[in-house]
C-alpha cells in the first residue's frame, strides 16, 4: 500500500510558506476559507492515490480542540 510521506518533501519550504501567507494577505475570512478549499482540492488531485489521501485525512482530522472536547 502506498504510504503518506511525512518527511519533508518541499523543494523550498520557506518559499512555499511565504507564498501561502501571501495569497491570504488582505483577504476576508470567507475568501481565505475558499482559497484553502480550492488549494486542498488542487493538491488532492495532484496526489491522486486514494490510500494516501485517506492517511492524510486521518491525520488532519485529529485536531486538539476535538480531542480535548472528548475528554
Amino acid at each position, binding site marked *: 500500500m502506498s504510504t503518506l510521506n511525512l518527511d519533508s518533501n518541499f523543494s523550498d519550504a520557506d518559499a512555499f510558506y*511565504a507564498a501561502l501567507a501571501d495569497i491570504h494577505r488582505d483577504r476576508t475570512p470567507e475568501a481565505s476559507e475558499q482559497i484553502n478549499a480550492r488549494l486542498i482540492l488542487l493538491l488532492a488531485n495532484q496526489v491522486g492515490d486514494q490510500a494516501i489521501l485517506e492517511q492524510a485525512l486521518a491525520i488532519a482530522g485529529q485536531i486538539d480542540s476535538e480531542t480535548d472536547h472528548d475528554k
Partner: protein
Amino acid sequence: MPTSYVNPEYPYQHSPDQDAQLPTHHPVIIAGGGPAGLAAAMDLAQQGVRTVVLDDNNTVSVGSRAICIAKRTLEICDRYGCGQAMLDKGVTWHLGKVYFGEEQIYEFNLLPEEDHKVPAFINLQQYYMEEYMVKRCMEMPEIELRWLHKVTAVNTDDSGTKVTVHTSEGDYTLSCDYLLVADGANSHIRSSLGLESKGQVFEDRFLIADIIMKADFPAERRFWFDAPFHPGQSTLLHKQADNVWRIDFQLGWDADPEEEKKLENIRPRVEAMLGKDMEWELDWASVYTFRCRKMDSFIHHRVFFIGDAAHQVSPFGARGANGALQGVDNLGWKLAAVMQGRAPESLLHTYDTERQHGAKENILHSTRATDFMTPKNNITKVFRDTVLDLSRHYPFARALVNSGRLSKPCSYPSSPLNTLDSDNFGAGVEPGSPCPDAPVGGGNGSGWLLNHIGNRFGILLKGEVDSNKLDHLVNSANALGQALDLICIDTADIQREDAVYLRDDKGVLNQRYDLGASAVYLIRPDQHVAARWRHFDPEAVAAALRRALGSELATEQAA
C-alpha cells in the same frame, strides 16, 4: 543598573585640518565608526589605502545590541587581524533548540562539519566587537580615527565630495574622492542627500533584557513559540560573554515601550521564565521594533553606503552586522583597485549589483522569519500554529518552522565578474562563492587555507605546474598592476621564491574544492572564487583576472 562592561572613552583630538584655510583633501573619508565603518577602514588599510574615520561619539556600542557573529564575519575579521580577539572572548555555540509550549519540536546543529578554523557562530556583545576593531584600527598607520567629529553636511557630485564636520571647537570642512557612509539605520547623511531606504515596518515590539547570571544552561540558542512562561508570544534565550544572557521577549504591537523597559515590569517576566530562586541582575534593556528595508542603489555619485545605512533587516537570522561585514568585504578591494589605477571605475558598480543581491537575500530570509513569528492575520496564525502543532509528530512540518534562518555567507553566482565554468567540476566551489576554509600544512604555519588567501588576487594550483607558464601569468598580472598570490598544493616539481607551498595532509582541501589530480582556482581579494579550471592555462587565468577587475563591464555603467 549594574553592568558587566564599562564603555571605553576615546578622547576628542584636535586635527590640523581644523586650522587649514582651505578644506583638506583626503582620498577616502568614512562617516561612522560602528562595525561597518571600522571594518571598511581596516579593509582599505590592508590594501594600503589611507582613511579618516569620523564618529559623532567617543565610545563603542552602548548596550550589547548585535550579538551573533557568523563564521564568515569571523573569517573577514581574521583577515583584518581582529578575529582572534573575538574568538577568544566570544561564546561558541552551534546547537539551536526550538520549543512550542513546553515541548521541544526541533533542533539544529549549525556546523556538524569538522576542519574549520572558526565555528559557525559565536555570541559576543557588539561593544566587544567594536572595541577589538578600534584596537586593531589604532595599530594600522593608514587609519585616522576622529572621535566627536560629527558629519553635519555633505555636498557631492561626480568629481568628489565636500563634508562639513562639527566639533566642540566649531565646524570645519574636508574634501574627499570617496565618502563611505556608515552612520547607521537612521542615516542622517542618507536623508540629507534626499535618498531613501525603502521597505516595510513590522508592527510588533520586542523587549531585550540582558541579564547577568551564573547559570549552567548550555550555550545553545533556545527559542520558544508560545512559551509557557510568556503565553502567546515568542521568547529567545542566548548566552553572551561575561555571564550575560540575552532574553528577547515578543511583546506585541500594543506594548508601551517606556513601561516595558522598567525593571519592575521586566522582573516578573524573567522570574516567570527562570523561576523566583534564580539570582540575576539586569545589565541592559531595550524595547525595539524593526524594519526590513534597503536603498535602491548603494552608490550616489562617489558616495558609498555601507551597513545599516544601506540596508536594514530584522534581527532574527543575524543578518545585520554580518551582512554589513560582507558588504564591506566586497567594496574594499574594488575601491582600492580603482583608486590605484588597476581597474576601471565601472568595477565599483559591481559593489551595488553584488550586494543588492546580498541585501535582498538577507531581507527575504529575515522577512519570512518575522512573518512566521508575527502572523499578520487570523488565517496565517492558524497556519503557523498548525505547522508548530504538526511539527511535534511529523518531520515534514519542521521544515516550515522558522525562528530565523541564520546568516550564511552570500554567493554571487551571476556576477559579471565571474568566468563561468568551462571544465567539469562535480563539486567544489562555484565561481562567485566564498572560499570554504580547510586545514593545510606548510606555508605560514597558521594551519588554515584562509590565512593564505585574501587582500590580493590569488591562484590555487594543484597538479603539475610549469614554472614558465607561471612566469607568463605573473607577467600578465604585473602588466595589470596586480600582485598575485601563487599557492601550490602538494606540488614538489617547482621551487619558486614567489610561491607558497601548502600540503593537503588531511585531504579536506581536495574534497571541498574538488581538486582531483589537477585544478586551478582564481580567487578574489575578498576570498570569493572568480574562476576555476581543470588545467593551468596562463592565458585563460589572465583573461579571467581582467574580467574580475571589470574589463568586460560596459563602460556606460561607469556613469
